[in-house]
């Protein structure tokens, strides 16, 4: 079943917390993964693979490079579910 934008954000925040220890309430739509949350490329890939499993979507390597902010990731996952 498709998840709403709010559910994707909450789920993604949970994955970010699991991988990095960053508090879930810090993971908001406008935040940049690298500049604001200080997530490195390897942690980002771990989060991406976990997100693929959690939301049953495919996020290709080339697409990962375009997902700069949390909002962009949430939008991609939400659309990819459709």
């Amino acid at each position, binding site marked *: 079943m498709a998840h709403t934008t709010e559910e994707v954000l909450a789920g993604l925040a949970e994955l970010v917390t699991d991988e990095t220890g960053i508090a879930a309430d810090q993971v908001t739509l406008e935040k940049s993964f690298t500049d604001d949350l200080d997530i490195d490329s390897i942690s980002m*890939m771990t989060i991406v693979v976990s997100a693929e499993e959690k939301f049953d979507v495919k996020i290709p*390597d080339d697409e990962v490079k375009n997902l700069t902010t949390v909002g962009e990731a949430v939008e991609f996952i939400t659309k990819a579910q459709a």
Partner: protein
Amino acid sequence: MSPLVQSQGAAFTKIYSLGAARGDTAVSNDDIAGPIDSSDEWIRQRTGVIERKRSSAGEGVIDLSVRAATEAIERAGIAPSDIGAVIVATISNPVQTPSLAALLADKIGATPAAAYDISAACAGYTYGIAQADALIRSGAARYVLVVGAEKLSDVVEPTDRSISFLLGDGAGAAVVGPSDTIGIGPTLWGSDGSKWDAVGMNKTLKEAFDDREGGFPTLRQDGPSVFRWAVWEMAKVAKNALEVSGVTAEELTAFVPHQANMRIIDEFAKQLGLPEKVLIARDIETTGNTSAASIPLAMHRLLAEHPEASGGLALQIGFGAGLVFGAQVVTLP
């Protein structure tokens, strides 16, 4: 007309012994952090590397190979002349031809053994073990020397932030021979050339020749893509290698993955769900990533630190530029 004869070898094979040689110079993170605008902390956090061993100018990849091979042969208790084939896995032979293996065979007195190099990057050693196993069981050789040898400091770019700072120099050697019991399980190996660009040299030799000021080709990688493949795709290969060997994770004594990056090793072990008791090789911490040499070097160190592991089962898996991969369960010598 005489009937044609086909050779037949030993029923089973095993690794008799290992040998190791690391570059003669310890290079700290602080030593290399400047040109990549980085720090000891940044490098440790992203790679788990504290220092890498590199060779000084006078130490070539052949010198590392001879040191490692000599130790392995002595420990095996065979004469160099007993060796029927010398296989060297390398991406840093300073010449495209002749092979490093032919020179090595001559220097250690393993003549006139068959000698050739394998270009399978970080999977090269596991390819070599697969070939040694097949050569011995087919009767093409009784003993095979397999060496993974690299002087990667020859192909690094100090300002590259993708891979250069991980790399070290070293050689690891194994003597493989006939056995009464199974010492080398089935090899799971393969390639995915659709990711040919993910890791490798940044230009061709011809391009370097035509643009002398641009310097020699050096290694680059698309780190995040390689990380995803190395953990999640290779975890599937590793699980299959266990399955075809008839071995469960609980039965393993050690896990010896290619020493690419500590983050890969840790995540890989997590994905495999290895029990606590399984020893995990983490030689990269002080040796760096030595490509084809990393598995035998890591296994050699693991056995030096845990001699009681000898005789137990180890899952070894190599993966790298190509992309190529190879995995097998072996009995620790």
